[in-house]
């Protein structure tokens, strides 16, 4: 907690005072965050290996085979990345033909979920849901080239929804988030925010 309060205080003072020593200290602290983040990745990778190794060791039904595939792929990619670099031809060949294609397929499946979701969930039961549905209708026909091709008004109405109610609502949310962040920073600075310590 002392470390957190110290870091917050340094960054806070850097912004408001501009004293050279504090400025340099703040620059150093922000640079350390990169190293801390890297350790976060290492911890994540380590726990991922441990968890999957446990599945294999216990031969957990329905999981151990996928855990094995995961670990082999994980190790394979690391070795390939070290040997070929992430811009090497073999690495890119595998990455483009496995990873990207699988993720693209996932995104493609999402299209069907959207259709089924729209059919099942978007019901005009009250004024709010009707307003939501109408906004969706005009925004969809504004984005899709077929909308303005049918009637240019779709574009105008869609633009108005986007620029006026949408902008106003998001600005309201952003201001609330900013106020919440200030309160969180204030509580952290005073040592009253302990949730990140698991408290």
């Amino acid at each position, binding site marked *: 907690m002392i470390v957190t309060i110290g870091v917050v205080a340094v960054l806070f003072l850097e912004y408001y005072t501009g004293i050279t020593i504090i400025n340099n200290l703040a*620059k150093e602290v*922000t*640079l350390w*965050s*990169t190293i*801390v*983040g*890297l350790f*976060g*990745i290492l911890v994540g990778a380590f726990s991922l290996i441990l968890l999957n190794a446990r599945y294999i060791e216990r031969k957990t039904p329905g999981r151990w085979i996928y855990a094995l595939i995961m670990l082999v792929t994980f190790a394979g990619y690391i070795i390939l990345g070290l040997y070929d*670099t*992430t*811009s090497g031809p073999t*690495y*890119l060949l595998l*990455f*483009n033909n496995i*990873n*990207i294609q*699988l*993720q*693209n397929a*996932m*995104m493609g499946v999402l*299209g*069907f979920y*959207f*259709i*089924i979701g*729209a*059919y*099942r969930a*978007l*019901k*005009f039961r009250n004024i709010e849901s009707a307003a939501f*549905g109408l906004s*969706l*209708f005009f925004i*969809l*026909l504004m*984005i*899709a*080239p*077929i*909308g*303005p*091709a049918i009637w240019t008004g779709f*574009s105008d109405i869609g633009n108005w929804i*986007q*620029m006026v109610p*949408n*902008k106003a609502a*998001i*600005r309201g949310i*952003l201001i609330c988030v900013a106020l919440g962040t200030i309160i969180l920073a204030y509580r952290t600075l005073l040592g009253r925010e302990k949730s990140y310590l698991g408290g």
Partner: protein
Amino acid sequence: MTQENNIVQKIRKIGAPKTLCIVLIIMVAGLKLYPMGLPVPISSTTQSFYDFVEDFEGGQVVAVQCLINSMVYAEAKGGIKTIIEHLFSKDAKLVFFNVYLPESPPILNTILNTISDEIKGTYGEDYVVYGYISGEEASLTAIGNSFWDAFPADQYGTPNNNLPIMQDVHSSKDFSFIVSMGCWFPASEASVRQWVQTFNKPLIMLVDAAQYMALQPYYPDQIKGLISGVTGSAQYELLTNKPGISISFTDAISGMAIILIIAIAFGNIYDTIKKKEV
């Protein structure tokens, strides 16, 4: 009449959601085989992006934050390629970096490989790619303060001292402007906070359609130009006179929009009929 009844009975048997999915497949396949080629109107935010790059004097260094993951690769690749080519055509020297998505560098390399050497020039002199570093928003601050400290070497491990493009680039002050391209919402908002508010740099962005709405409040004061997903990319391809993959996607977007509207209408009609029956 009997034939019509048979069709209705068949649809009932299959179920409306499955029928809609089948219609979607048929429609997308049909549009792929017989494109509609509808005109794509240019939005004001895409036009602003284009004008901003067009007004660029050239010869200066531009920072390009590339935040692409595999899921949005199909949506983003056309726009990203067109923007990079446009920047190169304006004689910009590009410094690519990324502090959010580890899978971004290989995707960026794939896109760069599709651009000819004549356009992109020499690696290390006209452009340079840095690998992923962790730290997210804090790393953006670190980059803005001192690029060399945050990224001591490029993706191949070449130290900055050996990269001609980096000799005059040390911090955010040395970048003419920032281009952020990708799909990671926290990164887009953090870019506004760090590059615009803290380091006072002009920022232009290509984002996915979902983020576009959420970033509207920042346009045009903080974000000087904003491109929205495939539709925006298609508009940009038209503006740069380089019709590419994004243009070919616009028919599918039209098809999807129609199917979605049909699905909503169908769902509501079915709901009303069911209520009346009860």
